[in-house]
């Protein structure tokens, strides 16, 4: 059985002055219109995005379910970046329990104290008392990565330049000003050795995708984007392997295995959730596109982060789905024929990889 994306809806990604459920409504409504269907055609509603501290509202899906169109319908919420909700939606369709399913994600980074929120995910006994913010952890990763593999400062900073260059031509991205290498290298530090310009561009927004079982997808759309495979994984809670991203490695392996594909280098586009500069290279390596420490060698030869990546747009809760939507839009436009989309969460210890094609 095949699963296709037949509708895509995104709000602007910027700082919004509307509550998260109104953003979710906007995205869902756009997706429904894009697919040319009605809310009533959707039988299942799979929500993604964070709850309680991550949004400032406990049981946030109470508000998002009706906004997504789920009034008196089947709704479930995967509490993670919305990219992680895609497998849930696909499994329901594969099980034969759904024909048309909507996936909705949102992020309202501007309303929350992000670092304080993520800090609470560390256990209260051992890690939280160290006040290790996400940026401090990612900075440790940068330091470990660059010293273990001997990767220069410039190579890592280039990742920002790369993303911003692409964001310039992506109308959906948030931060679209190009940056030169010197701009990045001369900017102020966030947590040493990470510079502020090397960290994700926080904003708000919502994304909705309408998925359909293959036979129905072909009837409803002439430009279906097919979901060829997906995989996801956790990794050890206790910090180890600072210079690698094992969850990404396992998620990608699973995705390729389930899709019965064997060449991960064969995708025509890659969208990766680089929450900081060094992540971009680390992700390429974890995916198996380059040896450890050699990500910079292939970064420019790939069609990488045409969306601008998370360094240009990061709505905490839906960045992964944002990257996916961007890839899907470009697949529809015929800019490339296949895409691997990566997402991660939880101090980079969880990852979800989706494979798209036409």
């Amino acid at each position, binding site marked *: 059985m095949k699963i296709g994306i037949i509708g895509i809806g995104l709000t602007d990604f910027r700082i919004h002055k509307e509550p998260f459920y109104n953003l979710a409504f906007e995205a869902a409504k756009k997706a429904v219109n894009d697919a040319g269907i009605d809310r009533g055609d959707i039988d299942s509603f799979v929500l993604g995005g964070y709850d309680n501290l991550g949004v400032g*509202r406990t049981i946030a899906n109470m508000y998002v379910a009706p906004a997504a169109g789920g009034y008196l319908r089947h709704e479930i919420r*995967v509490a993670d970046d919305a990219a992680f909700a895609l497998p849930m939606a696909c499994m329901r369709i594969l099980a034969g329990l759904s024909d048309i399913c909507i996936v909705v994600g949102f992020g309202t980074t501007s309303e929350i104290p992000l670092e304080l929120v993520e800090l609470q*995910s560390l256990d209260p006994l051992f890690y939280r008392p160290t006040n290790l913010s996400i940026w401090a952890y990612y900075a440790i990763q940068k330091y470990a990565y660059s010293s273990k593999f001997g990767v220069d400062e410039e190579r890592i900073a280039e990742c920002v330049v790369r993303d911003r260059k692409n964001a310039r031509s992506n109308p959906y991205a948030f931060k679209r000003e190009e940056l030169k290498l010197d701009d990045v290298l001369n900017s102020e530090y966030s947590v040493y050795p990470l510079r502020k310009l090397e960290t994700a561009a926080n904003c708000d927004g919502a994304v909705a995708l309408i998925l359909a079982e293959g036979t129905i997808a072909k009837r409803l759309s002439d430009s279906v984007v097919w979901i060829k495979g997906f995989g996801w994984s956790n990794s050890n809670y206790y910090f180890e392997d600072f210079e690698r991203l094992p969850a990404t490695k396992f998620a990608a392996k699973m995705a390729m295995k389930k899709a019965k594909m064997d060449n991960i280098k064969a995708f025509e586009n890659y969208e990766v959730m680089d929450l900081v500069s060094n992540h971009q290279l680390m992700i390429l390596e974890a995916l198996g596109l380059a040896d450890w420490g050699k990500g910079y060698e292939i970064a420019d030869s790939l069609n990488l982060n045409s969306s601008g990546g998370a360094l240009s747009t990061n709505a905490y809760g839906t960045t992964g789905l944002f990257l996916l939507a961007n890839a899907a839009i470009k697949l529809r436009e015929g800019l490339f024929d296949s895409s691997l989309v990566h997402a991660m969460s939880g101090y980079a210890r*969880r990852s979800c990889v989706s494979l798209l094609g036409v």
Partner: protein
Amino acid sequence: MRRVAIVGVGQTKFRTRREDKTHPELAFEAVKKTLEHSGLNINDIEAVVYGSMDPFDGIYRPELWDSTSSGIFKPHMKISTGGTTGLTTALAAYEHVASGLFDVVLAIAVQRVGECADAQSVLNTAVDPIYERHSGVGAIHVASFQATRYMHEFKATEEDIAWVSVKDHKNALKNPYAHIKMDVTVEDVLKSPVICSPLKLLECCPRSDGAAAAIFASEEVAKKIRDNPAWILGEVTISDNYYIGDRPNLAVWDSLALAGRRLYRAVGIDDPKKDIDVAELYSAFSIQEILELEALGFAKPGEGKDYAKNGITFPDGDIPTNPSGGVLCTNPIGASGLIRIIEASLQVMGEASNQVENARVALAHAWGGTLQFHTLFMVSSSKKFGR
């Protein structure tokens, strides 16, 4: 569509506080029991679905810390949907297997309400801060709204409703995992202090610490694991709008009635009273069992109030409801929904502590949000419904 069964279950003993274990250690206790019950080991588990209602335990995203207890480098999914969490976690695990992508999936739900100073203040953070949070409303209040309205519409008395509490407490005495073990009379219930009128202390659920887990397996694998798996006949979940004021009539849980109809149609149930042998319903407050029985077609509107009083919902009655003692006696909020399907499964497996005779078809239910969500599951000792 693949047939899926529950092949192993596990629960920790529920207490006000499990100060002897950390969060992941508590999760591990449930995982270990479940593996023992199924005869599997951790490497047999291909994917994990984890449920918890986060803020209660004082940890944001406890699944990160707890994933050490259920296997790392596995696909691990976090489900969180308020009170229905435990059962939507089961739903997600079921769909993992039903999709054909996995053969053995673990569903685990953990909650440590005992670590939180006050559950109601946390529940208040669920209430809309823009329009409603100032009103000091938590879970008890919405149930008491139901009670006030039901008593007004159907002329139910406080005694009628108190009988549900008497039944649940008696049942819990037979459940080795239950939290509250107290034999109470109607007078005891009526004399207990009023919390939110008209509900009294003994009509409200406790705050419990604990974890529960269940293993879902595909048909081919299930048959190899045990002779008496609990087959999943069907599942339904429904979401109403958020605002409590949108409910047409708080004495009638119409969204649950809708969900029930859909499940019965899917499974082939003609008459729930005759076709279902036992029900584990999420009744966190005495009044709720009454509304649930009526919404699910076990009783006509207004009739539900007499069921407990007349013994109909006791284990030896016609419609045994919550023989485990239910949520009223054990409520580790995010796990309570999973416990409902665990108890329902034990019933049809013939292994329940308060076993209903000849239980072959069982219903599990959970509700969540502002009386907003419902999840239902039907399990059976047979692969398909039909006698």
